[in-house]
Protein backbone atom coordinates (compact mmCIF):
# COMPACT_ATOMS: atom_id res chain seq x y z
CA UNK A 1 0.00 0.00 0.00
CA UNK A 2 1.19 3.52 -0.79
CA UNK A 3 2.51 5.42 2.20
CA UNK A 4 2.94 9.13 2.63
CA UNK A 5 3.71 11.61 5.39
CA UNK A 6 1.64 14.62 6.36
CA UNK A 7 4.74 16.84 6.10
CA UNK A 8 5.22 15.73 2.47
CA UNK A 9 1.56 16.48 1.74
CA UNK A 10 2.01 19.89 3.31
CA UNK A 11 5.01 20.60 1.08
CA UNK A 12 3.07 19.66 -2.04
CA UNK A 13 0.07 21.71 -1.00
CA UNK A 14 2.15 24.78 -0.25
CA UNK A 15 4.06 24.65 -3.54
CA UNK A 16 0.72 24.48 -5.41
CA UNK A 17 -0.78 27.30 -3.39
CA UNK A 18 2.29 29.47 -3.94
CA UNK A 19 1.47 29.52 -7.63
CA UNK A 20 -2.14 30.54 -7.03
CA UNK A 21 -1.77 33.02 -4.21
CA UNK A 22 1.07 35.51 -4.45
CA UNK A 23 0.68 36.56 -0.81
CA UNK A 24 1.77 33.18 0.46
CA UNK A 25 5.19 33.20 2.16
CA UNK A 26 7.13 30.23 3.50
CA UNK A 27 9.59 30.63 6.35
CA UNK A 28 11.92 28.22 8.09
CA UNK A 29 14.55 28.06 10.82
CA UNK A 30 17.26 25.91 9.20
CA UNK A 31 14.87 23.03 8.62
CA UNK A 32 13.53 23.81 5.16
CA UNK A 33 14.39 20.35 3.85
CA UNK A 34 12.76 18.54 6.75
CA UNK A 35 9.62 20.66 6.64
CA UNK A 36 9.38 20.03 2.87
CA UNK A 37 9.84 23.57 1.61
CA UNK A 38 12.29 22.51 -1.10
CA UNK A 39 9.84 22.93 -4.01
CA UNK A 40 8.40 26.18 -2.68
CA UNK A 41 11.88 27.63 -2.26
CA UNK A 42 12.86 26.64 -5.78
CA UNK A 43 9.69 28.02 -7.39
CA UNK A 44 9.24 31.17 -5.31
CA UNK A 45 12.60 32.25 -3.90
CA UNK A 46 11.28 35.81 -3.54
CA UNK A 47 8.68 34.57 -1.05
CA UNK A 48 10.93 32.17 0.83
CA UNK A 49 12.58 33.30 4.09
CA UNK A 50 15.43 31.55 5.92
CA UNK A 51 15.89 32.90 9.46
CA UNK A 52 18.57 30.45 10.61
CA UNK A 53 18.34 28.55 13.90
CA UNK A 54 16.16 31.24 15.50
CA UNK A 55 12.59 30.14 16.15
CA UNK A 56 11.53 33.17 18.16
CA UNK A 57 12.57 35.32 15.24
CA UNK A 58 10.78 32.94 12.87
CA UNK A 59 7.34 33.46 14.37
CA UNK A 60 7.70 37.17 15.12
CA UNK A 61 8.97 37.99 11.61
CA UNK A 62 5.94 36.03 10.38
CA UNK A 63 3.71 38.22 12.53
CA UNK A 64 5.19 41.30 10.85
CA UNK A 65 4.64 39.84 7.39
CA UNK A 66 1.01 39.09 8.24
CA UNK A 67 0.55 42.67 9.38
CA UNK A 68 1.12 43.93 5.83
CA UNK A 69 -1.19 41.37 4.25
CA UNK A 70 1.08 38.41 3.57
CA UNK A 71 0.05 34.87 4.51
CA UNK A 72 3.10 33.47 6.25
CA UNK A 73 3.61 29.75 6.83
CA UNK A 74 6.25 29.51 9.57
CA UNK A 75 7.77 26.04 9.62
CA UNK A 76 10.08 24.06 11.90
CA UNK A 77 9.85 21.06 14.25
CA UNK A 78 7.01 21.19 16.79
CA UNK A 79 9.37 20.99 19.75
CA UNK A 80 11.05 24.24 18.66
CA UNK A 81 7.86 26.01 17.69
CA UNK A 82 5.49 26.22 19.48
CA UNK A 83 7.84 24.63 22.03
CA UNK A 84 10.24 27.55 22.22
CA UNK A 85 8.01 30.25 20.81
CA UNK A 86 4.85 30.05 22.85
CA UNK A 87 4.81 33.54 24.35
CA UNK A 88 5.71 35.16 21.03
CA UNK A 89 2.84 33.27 19.40
CA UNK A 90 0.51 34.24 22.22
CA UNK A 91 1.20 37.98 22.08
CA UNK A 92 2.31 38.83 18.57
CA UNK A 93 0.14 36.33 16.68
CA UNK A 94 -2.91 35.39 18.76
CA UNK A 95 -3.50 38.57 20.75
CA UNK A 96 -2.63 40.64 17.68
CA UNK A 97 -4.90 38.31 15.72
CA UNK A 98 -2.47 37.98 12.82
CA UNK A 99 -3.26 35.11 10.45
CA UNK A 100 0.14 33.41 10.77
CA UNK A 101 0.19 29.68 10.05
CA UNK A 102 2.43 27.86 12.51
CA UNK A 103 3.29 24.64 10.65
CA UNK A 104 5.24 22.19 12.73
CA UNK A 105 6.52 18.82 11.64
CA UNK A 106 8.02 16.03 13.78
CA UNK A 107 5.25 15.96 16.35
CA UNK A 108 4.71 13.07 18.71
CA UNK A 109 6.40 9.71 19.27
CA UNK A 110 6.20 9.30 15.50
CA UNK A 111 9.58 11.11 15.33
CA UNK A 112 11.28 7.87 16.39
CA UNK A 113 15.06 7.58 16.73
CA UNK A 114 15.88 11.23 17.56
CA UNK A 115 14.38 10.56 20.98
CA UNK A 116 12.42 12.46 23.60
CA UNK A 117 14.04 15.87 23.10
CA UNK A 118 12.53 15.94 19.62
CA UNK A 119 9.20 14.20 20.28
CA UNK A 120 6.77 17.02 20.92
CA UNK A 121 3.91 15.69 23.04
CA UNK A 122 2.56 18.88 24.57
CA UNK A 123 1.92 21.15 21.59
CA UNK A 124 -1.82 20.53 21.24
CA UNK A 125 -2.25 21.63 24.84
CA UNK A 126 -0.09 24.71 24.30
CA UNK A 127 -1.87 25.81 21.16
CA UNK A 128 -5.41 24.84 22.07
CA UNK A 129 -5.35 27.07 25.14
CA UNK A 130 -4.67 30.22 23.12
CA UNK A 131 -7.58 32.51 22.19
CA UNK A 132 -7.96 33.11 18.42
CA UNK A 133 -5.98 29.98 17.55
CA UNK A 134 -7.36 27.24 15.29
CA UNK A 135 -5.70 23.84 15.74
CA UNK A 136 -5.50 21.20 13.00
CA UNK A 137 -3.71 17.88 12.59
CA UNK A 138 -4.35 15.99 9.34
CA UNK A 139 -4.47 12.19 9.34
CA UNK A 140 -2.58 11.55 6.10
CA UNK A 141 -0.58 13.20 3.34
CA UNK A 142 -3.58 13.80 1.11
CA UNK A 143 -5.57 15.47 3.85
CA UNK A 144 -2.57 17.64 4.69
CA UNK A 145 -2.20 18.68 1.06
CA UNK A 146 -5.87 19.62 0.85
CA UNK A 147 -5.85 21.48 4.14
CA UNK A 148 -3.13 23.94 3.11
CA UNK A 149 -5.38 26.10 0.94
CA UNK A 150 -8.21 26.07 3.49
CA UNK A 151 -5.79 27.20 6.14
CA UNK A 152 -4.48 30.01 3.97
CA UNK A 153 -8.02 31.26 3.36
CA UNK A 154 -8.97 30.98 7.04
CA UNK A 155 -8.28 34.52 8.23
CA UNK A 156 -7.04 33.46 11.66
CA UNK A 157 -3.89 32.18 13.31
CA UNK A 158 -3.61 28.43 12.71
CA UNK A 159 -1.52 25.72 14.31
CA UNK A 160 -0.94 22.95 11.76
CA UNK A 161 0.51 19.87 13.44
CA UNK A 162 2.41 17.56 11.12
CA UNK A 163 4.26 14.28 11.28
CA UNK A 164 7.56 12.91 10.08
CA UNK A 165 6.59 9.26 9.61
CA UNK A 166 5.07 7.80 6.48
CA UNK A 167 1.73 6.10 7.03
CA UNK A 168 -1.05 4.54 4.96
CA UNK A 169 -3.67 6.77 3.39
CA UNK A 170 -7.04 7.03 5.12
CA UNK A 171 -8.63 9.55 2.77
CA UNK A 172 -8.86 9.83 -1.00
CA UNK A 173 -8.92 12.66 -3.53
CA UNK A 174 -12.68 13.04 -3.12
CA UNK A 175 -12.85 13.08 0.69
CA UNK A 176 -13.95 16.46 1.94
CA UNK A 177 -11.91 18.61 4.26
CA UNK A 178 -13.60 21.49 6.05
CA UNK A 179 -12.03 23.22 9.05
CA UNK A 180 -14.09 22.35 12.12
CA UNK A 181 -16.02 19.53 10.46
CA UNK A 182 -14.97 16.06 11.59
CA UNK A 183 -15.04 13.12 9.18
CA UNK A 184 -16.40 9.71 10.01
CA UNK A 185 -13.94 7.07 8.82
CA UNK A 186 -16.07 4.10 9.84
CA UNK A 187 -19.63 3.84 11.06
CA UNK A 188 -20.33 1.86 14.22
CA UNK A 189 -22.94 1.21 16.90
CA UNK A 190 -21.29 0.22 20.18
CA UNK A 191 -18.52 2.68 20.92
CA UNK A 192 -17.20 5.95 19.51
CA UNK A 193 -13.48 6.28 18.86
CA UNK A 194 -12.27 9.82 18.27
CA UNK A 195 -8.73 10.18 16.98
CA UNK A 196 -6.43 12.83 15.57
CA UNK A 197 -3.48 12.50 13.19
CA UNK A 198 -1.86 9.45 11.59
CA UNK A 199 -2.41 7.33 14.72
CA UNK A 200 -5.89 6.97 13.23
CA UNK A 201 -4.37 4.36 10.91
CA UNK A 202 -3.76 2.11 13.91
CA UNK A 203 -7.17 3.01 15.34
CA UNK A 204 -9.08 2.19 12.17
CA UNK A 205 -7.33 -1.15 11.75
CA UNK A 206 -8.14 -2.01 15.35
CA UNK A 207 -11.79 -1.08 14.73
CA UNK A 208 -11.96 -3.23 11.61
CA UNK A 209 -10.63 -6.27 13.46
CA UNK A 210 -13.06 -5.69 16.31
CA UNK A 211 -15.95 -5.51 13.85
CA UNK A 212 -15.16 -9.08 12.86
CA UNK A 213 -15.26 -10.02 16.52
CA UNK A 214 -18.70 -8.46 16.87
CA UNK A 215 -17.81 -5.13 18.41
CA UNK A 216 -18.87 -2.21 16.26
CA UNK A 217 -16.65 0.87 16.65
CA UNK A 218 -17.45 4.23 15.06
CA UNK A 219 -14.21 5.98 14.10
CA UNK A 220 -14.13 9.77 13.87
CA UNK A 221 -11.25 11.74 12.37
CA UNK A 222 -11.18 14.91 14.48
CA UNK A 223 -8.64 16.71 12.26
CA UNK A 224 -9.69 20.04 13.72
CA UNK A 225 -9.10 19.99 17.46
CA UNK A 226 -10.23 23.58 17.82
CA UNK A 227 -12.93 24.57 17.19
CA UNK A 228 -14.17 21.13 18.22
CA UNK A 229 -16.95 19.61 16.10
CA UNK A 230 -19.41 19.14 18.95
CA UNK A 231 -22.31 18.21 16.71
CA UNK A 232 -20.58 15.19 15.22
CA UNK A 233 -19.44 14.04 18.67
CA UNK A 234 -22.92 14.32 20.18
CA UNK A 235 -24.55 12.55 17.29
CA UNK A 236 -22.24 9.61 17.67
CA UNK A 237 -22.37 9.50 21.48
CA UNK A 238 -26.17 9.57 21.44
CA UNK A 239 -25.94 6.27 19.63
CA UNK A 240 -23.04 4.58 21.45
CA UNK A 241 -22.89 6.10 24.95
CA UNK A 242 -19.19 5.21 25.16
CA UNK A 243 -16.17 7.15 23.97
CA UNK A 244 -12.47 6.47 23.59
CA UNK A 245 -9.95 9.02 22.33
CA UNK A 246 -6.59 8.33 20.67
CA UNK A 247 -3.74 10.79 20.16
CA UNK A 248 0.03 10.81 19.76
CA UNK A 249 0.28 13.44 22.52
CA UNK A 250 0.11 13.62 26.30
CA UNK A 251 -3.35 12.65 27.48
CA UNK A 252 -3.22 15.89 29.45
CA UNK A 253 -4.45 18.87 27.50
CA UNK A 254 -4.95 17.41 24.04
CA UNK A 255 -7.80 15.72 22.21
CA UNK A 256 -8.99 13.56 25.12
CA UNK A 257 -9.10 16.54 27.45
CA UNK A 258 -10.90 18.58 24.87
CA UNK A 259 -13.61 15.96 24.36
CA UNK A 260 -13.90 15.43 28.12
CA UNK A 261 -14.29 19.16 28.80
CA UNK A 262 -17.15 19.23 26.36
CA UNK A 263 -18.97 16.01 27.22
CA UNK A 264 -18.65 16.34 31.00
CA UNK A 265 -20.68 19.54 30.79
CA UNK A 266 -23.39 18.54 28.37
CA UNK A 267 -23.61 14.77 28.38
CA UNK A 268 -21.36 12.95 30.86
CA UNK A 269 -20.27 9.77 29.10
CA UNK A 270 -17.97 6.93 30.22
CA UNK A 271 -14.65 7.72 28.63
CA UNK A 272 -11.17 6.31 28.08
CA UNK A 273 -8.24 8.39 26.82
CA UNK A 274 -5.31 6.80 25.01
CA UNK A 275 -2.09 8.74 24.60
CA UNK A 276 1.17 9.30 26.42
CA UNK A 277 0.63 9.29 30.16
CA UNK A 278 2.72 11.95 31.88
CA UNK A 279 6.07 10.67 30.65
CA UNK A 280 8.65 11.56 28.00
CA UNK A 281 9.25 9.39 24.96
CA UNK A 282 12.59 7.85 23.96
CA UNK A 283 14.61 6.62 20.98
CA UNK A 284 13.31 3.71 18.94
CA UNK A 285 11.46 3.15 15.68
CA UNK A 286 8.04 4.77 15.67
CA UNK A 287 6.35 1.39 15.36
CA UNK A 288 8.16 0.12 18.47
CA UNK A 289 7.28 3.29 20.34
CA UNK A 290 3.62 3.15 19.36
CA UNK A 291 3.52 -0.36 20.72
CA UNK A 292 5.37 0.46 23.94
CA UNK A 293 3.15 3.48 24.65
CA UNK A 294 -0.12 1.77 23.80
CA UNK A 295 -0.81 3.33 20.40
CA UNK A 296 -0.29 0.36 18.06
CA UNK A 297 -3.23 -1.42 16.48
CA UNK A 298 -2.93 -4.35 18.87
CA UNK A 299 -2.65 -2.18 21.98
CA UNK A 300 -5.55 0.04 20.92
CA UNK A 301 -7.67 -3.03 20.25
CA UNK A 302 -6.86 -4.42 23.67
CA UNK A 303 -7.70 -1.12 25.37
CA UNK A 304 -11.05 -0.84 23.57
CA UNK A 305 -12.03 -4.40 24.53
CA UNK A 306 -11.06 -3.90 28.15
CA UNK A 307 -12.90 -0.60 28.33
CA UNK A 308 -16.07 -2.02 26.82
CA UNK A 309 -15.99 -5.02 29.15
CA UNK A 310 -15.56 -2.83 32.22
CA UNK A 311 -17.99 -0.08 31.21
Amino acid at each position, binding site marked *: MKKDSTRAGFGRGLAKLGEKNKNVYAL*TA*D*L*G*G*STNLTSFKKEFPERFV*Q*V*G*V*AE*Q*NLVTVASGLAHIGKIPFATTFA*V*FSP*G*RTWEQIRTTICYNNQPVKICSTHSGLGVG*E*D*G*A*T*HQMLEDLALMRSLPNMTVIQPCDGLEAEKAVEKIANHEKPVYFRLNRQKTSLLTNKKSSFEIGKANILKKGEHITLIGIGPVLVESLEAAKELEEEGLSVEVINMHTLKPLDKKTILKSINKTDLVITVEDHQVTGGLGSSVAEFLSQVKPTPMKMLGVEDTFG*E*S*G*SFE*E*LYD*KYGLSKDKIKKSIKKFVEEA
Partner: protein
Amino acid sequence: MKKKDLTKKCKDIRIKLLKTLNKAGSGHTAGPLGMTEVFTFLYNDFLKINPKKPKDPKRDYLILSNGHICPIQYVVMSDKGFFPEKELYTLRKLNSRLQGHPHREALPGLETTSGPLGSGLSQACGIALGLKRDNKKNKVVCLTSDGEHEEGNTWEAILFAAKYDLNNLIQIIDRNNIQIDGYTEDIMPLNSLSEKYKSFNWNVIEIDGNNIKQIEKALINADKKKTKPTVIIANTVPGKGVSFMENKYEWHGKVPNDEELKKALEELK
Protein backbone atom coordinates in the same frame (compact mmCIF):
# COMPACT_ATOMS: atom_id res chain seq x y z
CA MET B 1 49.05 11.33 27.00
CA LYS B 2 51.80 11.67 24.35
CA LYS B 3 50.82 13.51 21.18
CA LYS B 4 51.64 10.46 19.09
CA ASP B 5 49.37 8.26 21.18
CA LEU B 6 46.57 10.82 21.09
CA THR B 7 46.78 11.00 17.32
CA LYS B 8 46.57 7.21 17.14
CA LYS B 9 43.64 7.25 19.56
CA CYS B 10 41.76 9.79 17.43
CA LYS B 11 42.03 7.47 14.49
CA ASP B 12 40.62 4.53 16.49
CA ILE B 13 37.86 6.74 17.83
CA ARG B 14 36.86 7.81 14.32
CA ILE B 15 36.69 4.18 13.22
CA LYS B 16 34.46 3.23 16.16
CA LEU B 17 32.35 6.32 15.58
CA LEU B 18 31.63 5.47 11.95
CA LYS B 19 30.78 1.88 12.82
CA THR B 20 28.47 3.09 15.57
CA LEU B 21 26.67 5.51 13.25
CA ASN B 22 26.31 2.88 10.54
CA LYS B 23 24.75 0.49 13.01
CA ALA B 24 22.41 3.17 14.39
CA GLY B 25 21.07 3.79 10.89
CA SER B 26 20.31 7.46 11.51
CA GLY B 27 21.98 10.42 13.18
CA HIS B 28 24.76 12.91 12.57
CA THR B 29 28.21 12.37 11.10
CA ALA B 30 29.94 15.61 10.05
CA GLY B 31 29.96 17.36 13.45
CA PRO B 32 31.15 14.33 15.45
CA LEU B 33 34.02 13.62 13.02
CA GLY B 34 35.10 17.26 13.18
CA MET B 35 35.10 17.34 16.98
CA THR B 36 37.04 14.10 17.50
CA GLU B 37 40.31 15.79 18.55
CA VAL B 38 38.56 18.16 20.97
CA PHE B 39 36.63 15.39 22.75
CA THR B 40 39.59 13.03 22.83
CA PHE B 41 41.86 15.67 24.32
CA LEU B 42 39.30 16.90 26.85
CA TYR B 43 38.59 13.45 28.26
CA ASN B 44 42.16 12.17 28.18
CA ASP B 45 44.26 15.19 29.09
CA PHE B 46 42.24 18.05 30.47
CA LEU B 47 39.09 17.35 32.42
CA LYS B 48 39.15 15.92 35.89
CA ILE B 49 36.48 13.25 35.41
CA ASN B 50 36.37 9.78 36.92
CA PRO B 51 34.24 7.20 35.09
CA LYS B 52 33.89 5.30 38.37
CA LYS B 53 32.64 8.41 40.19
CA PRO B 54 30.66 10.43 37.64
CA LYS B 55 28.95 12.50 40.34
CA ASP B 56 32.13 13.38 42.25
CA PRO B 57 31.62 16.95 43.55
CA LYS B 58 35.26 17.70 42.70
CA ARG B 59 34.80 16.86 39.01
CA ASP B 60 35.06 19.29 36.14
CA TYR B 61 31.83 19.91 34.27
CA LEU B 62 31.46 19.25 30.55
CA ILE B 63 28.25 20.68 29.11
CA LEU B 64 27.46 19.61 25.56
CA SER B 65 25.08 22.19 24.15
CA ASN B 66 24.87 20.99 20.55
CA GLY B 67 23.50 17.61 21.57
CA HIS B 68 23.23 16.17 18.07
CA ILE B 69 27.00 15.51 18.04
CA CYS B 70 26.67 13.20 21.07
CA PRO B 71 27.88 10.08 19.20
CA ILE B 72 31.45 11.37 19.49
CA GLN B 73 30.96 11.94 23.21
CA TYR B 74 29.55 8.43 23.62
CA VAL B 75 32.48 6.84 21.78
CA VAL B 76 35.07 8.77 23.81
CA MET B 77 33.22 8.03 27.06
CA SER B 78 33.13 4.33 26.33
CA ASP B 79 36.83 4.46 25.48
CA LYS B 80 37.41 6.06 28.90
CA GLY B 81 35.54 3.25 30.63
CA PHE B 82 32.15 4.83 31.32
CA PHE B 83 30.43 1.85 29.67
CA PRO B 84 31.36 -1.20 27.56
CA GLU B 85 32.21 -0.69 23.91
CA LYS B 86 29.53 -3.06 22.69
CA GLU B 87 26.86 -0.82 24.15
CA LEU B 88 27.78 1.71 21.45
CA TYR B 89 25.87 -0.45 19.02
CA THR B 90 22.61 0.18 20.86
CA LEU B 91 22.69 3.88 19.91
CA ARG B 92 19.18 5.15 19.01
CA LYS B 93 17.59 1.74 19.64
CA LEU B 94 14.63 1.10 21.93
CA ASN B 95 15.57 0.92 25.63
CA SER B 96 19.16 2.09 25.01
CA ARG B 97 21.01 4.35 27.45
CA LEU B 98 22.46 6.01 24.36
CA GLN B 99 19.55 8.16 23.32
CA GLY B 100 19.54 9.84 19.91
CA HIS B 101 20.16 13.10 21.74
CA PRO B 102 21.92 12.90 25.11
CA HIS B 103 19.71 12.53 28.16
CA ARG B 104 21.10 13.32 31.60
CA GLU B 105 19.10 10.67 33.40
CA ALA B 106 19.81 7.92 30.88
CA LEU B 107 23.59 7.64 31.22
CA PRO B 108 25.88 8.45 34.17
CA GLY B 109 28.50 10.99 33.12
CA LEU B 110 26.20 13.18 31.07
CA GLU B 111 25.72 16.53 32.79
CA THR B 112 22.67 17.65 30.84
CA THR B 113 20.04 16.76 28.28
CA SER B 114 20.45 18.56 24.96
CA GLY B 115 19.43 18.52 21.32
CA PRO B 116 17.31 21.65 21.13
CA LEU B 117 20.06 24.17 20.38
CA GLY B 118 21.15 27.28 22.21
CA SER B 119 20.49 26.49 25.85
CA GLY B 120 23.76 24.85 26.92
CA LEU B 121 25.79 28.00 27.46
CA SER B 122 23.23 29.43 29.88
CA GLN B 123 23.28 26.23 31.93
CA ALA B 124 27.08 26.32 31.96
CA CYS B 125 26.84 29.95 33.17
CA GLY B 126 24.59 28.87 36.03
CA ILE B 127 27.02 26.14 37.06
CA ALA B 128 30.03 28.46 36.76
CA LEU B 129 28.35 31.26 38.72
CA GLY B 130 27.37 28.96 41.58
CA LEU B 131 30.84 27.39 41.75
CA LYS B 132 32.51 30.79 41.69
CA ARG B 133 30.36 32.10 44.51
CA ASP B 134 31.18 29.00 46.54
CA ASN B 135 34.90 29.50 45.83
CA LYS B 136 35.11 26.08 44.18
CA LYS B 137 37.92 25.26 41.78
CA ASN B 138 36.03 22.99 39.35
CA LYS B 139 36.38 23.95 35.72
CA VAL B 140 33.33 24.39 33.51
CA VAL B 141 33.75 23.60 29.82
CA CYS B 142 30.84 24.21 27.47
CA LEU B 143 30.81 22.91 23.91
CA THR B 144 28.65 24.77 21.41
CA SER B 145 28.31 25.01 17.64
CA ASP B 146 28.37 27.86 15.17
CA GLY B 147 24.76 27.16 14.17
CA GLU B 148 23.72 27.73 17.77
CA HIS B 149 24.99 31.28 17.52
CA GLU B 150 21.84 32.07 15.56
CA GLU B 151 19.76 31.47 18.71
CA GLY B 152 18.95 34.45 20.94
CA ASN B 153 19.45 32.31 24.05
CA THR B 154 23.15 31.95 23.21
CA TRP B 155 23.65 35.72 23.12
CA GLU B 156 21.78 36.17 26.39
CA ALA B 157 24.31 33.80 27.95
CA ILE B 158 27.25 35.59 26.34
CA LEU B 159 26.19 38.87 27.96
CA PHE B 160 25.62 37.15 31.28
CA ALA B 161 29.00 35.41 31.41
CA ALA B 162 30.78 38.72 30.87
CA LYS B 163 28.68 40.54 33.46
CA TYR B 164 29.50 37.97 36.15
CA ASP B 165 33.13 37.71 35.05
CA LEU B 166 32.94 33.91 34.81
CA ASN B 167 36.67 33.21 34.55
CA ASN B 168 36.00 29.57 35.46
CA LEU B 169 34.06 29.09 32.23
CA ILE B 170 35.64 27.94 28.98
CA GLN B 171 33.49 27.71 25.89
CA ILE B 172 34.68 25.80 22.84
CA ILE B 173 32.79 26.58 19.63
CA ASP B 174 32.74 24.06 16.80
CA ARG B 175 33.26 26.60 14.03
CA ASN B 176 32.79 24.29 11.06
CA ASN B 177 30.77 26.65 8.84
CA ILE B 178 27.94 24.20 8.21
CA GLN B 179 24.44 23.63 9.53
CA ILE B 180 21.43 21.66 8.22
CA ASP B 181 20.19 23.62 5.23
CA GLY B 182 23.62 24.78 4.05
CA TYR B 183 26.75 26.77 4.91
CA THR B 184 26.36 29.08 7.90
CA GLU B 185 27.35 32.18 5.96
CA ASP B 186 24.52 31.52 3.46
CA ILE B 187 21.88 30.52 6.00
CA MET B 188 22.58 33.33 8.48
CA PRO B 189 25.91 35.12 8.22
CA LEU B 190 27.81 34.93 11.51
CA ASN B 191 30.89 36.67 10.14
CA SER B 192 33.72 37.01 12.65
CA LEU B 193 32.79 35.33 15.90
CA SER B 194 36.14 36.44 17.27
CA GLU B 195 35.30 40.15 16.78
CA LYS B 196 31.86 39.62 18.27
CA TYR B 197 33.17 37.89 21.40
CA LYS B 198 35.85 40.55 21.90
CA SER B 199 33.24 43.27 21.86
CA PHE B 200 31.14 41.24 24.31
CA ASN B 201 34.12 41.28 26.70
CA TRP B 202 35.35 37.69 26.53
CA ASN B 203 38.92 36.37 26.20
CA VAL B 204 39.17 34.99 22.68
CA ILE B 205 41.50 32.25 21.43
CA GLU B 206 41.16 31.04 17.85
CA ILE B 207 42.69 27.72 16.77
CA ASP B 208 42.69 24.89 14.28
CA GLY B 209 40.31 22.58 16.11
CA ASN B 210 41.67 19.45 14.50
CA ASN B 211 45.21 20.16 15.73
CA ILE B 212 45.89 18.55 19.10
CA LYS B 213 48.88 20.79 19.91
CA GLN B 214 46.77 23.90 19.38
CA ILE B 215 43.90 22.48 21.42
CA GLU B 216 46.27 21.79 24.30
CA LYS B 217 47.89 25.21 24.19
CA ALA B 218 44.52 26.97 24.02
CA LEU B 219 43.11 25.08 27.01
CA ILE B 220 46.21 25.69 29.13
CA ASN B 221 46.03 29.39 28.32
CA ALA B 222 42.31 29.57 28.96
CA ASP B 223 42.77 27.90 32.32
CA LYS B 224 45.30 30.55 33.37
CA LYS B 225 43.02 33.53 32.74
CA LYS B 226 42.25 35.41 35.93
CA THR B 227 39.41 37.52 34.57
CA LYS B 228 36.60 37.18 32.00
CA PRO B 229 35.14 34.04 30.47
CA THR B 230 37.16 32.49 27.65
CA VAL B 231 35.99 31.28 24.29
CA ILE B 232 38.09 28.98 22.12
CA ILE B 233 36.92 29.24 18.55
CA ALA B 234 37.84 25.85 17.14
CA ASN B 235 37.95 25.99 13.37
CA THR B 236 37.22 22.41 12.45
CA VAL B 237 36.62 20.50 9.24
CA PRO B 238 33.18 18.89 9.33
CA GLY B 239 33.46 15.25 8.31
CA LYS B 240 37.21 15.36 9.08
CA GLY B 241 39.15 12.27 8.03
CA VAL B 242 36.81 10.99 5.33
CA SER B 243 37.42 12.75 2.01
CA PHE B 244 33.89 12.41 0.65
CA MET B 245 32.37 13.81 3.84
CA GLU B 246 34.72 16.72 4.50
CA ASN B 247 33.16 20.19 4.32
CA LYS B 248 29.88 18.86 2.98
CA TYR B 249 26.81 20.09 4.85
CA GLU B 250 24.89 17.17 3.34
CA TRP B 251 26.69 15.00 5.91
CA HIS B 252 25.29 17.03 8.82
CA GLY B 253 22.41 14.67 9.45
CA LYS B 254 22.99 11.38 7.68
CA VAL B 255 25.05 8.32 8.46
CA PRO B 256 27.19 6.06 6.26
CA ASN B 257 25.51 3.03 4.70
CA ASP B 258 27.47 -0.21 4.45
CA GLU B 259 29.24 0.75 1.26
CA GLU B 260 30.12 4.24 2.45
CA LEU B 261 31.35 2.78 5.72
CA LYS B 262 33.69 0.44 3.89
CA LYS B 263 35.11 3.28 1.79
CA ALA B 264 35.51 5.49 4.86
CA LEU B 265 37.28 2.81 6.88
CA GLU B 266 39.74 2.19 4.06
CA GLU B 267 40.68 5.87 4.13
CA LEU B 268 41.18 5.82 7.87
CA LYS B 269 43.37 2.71 7.92
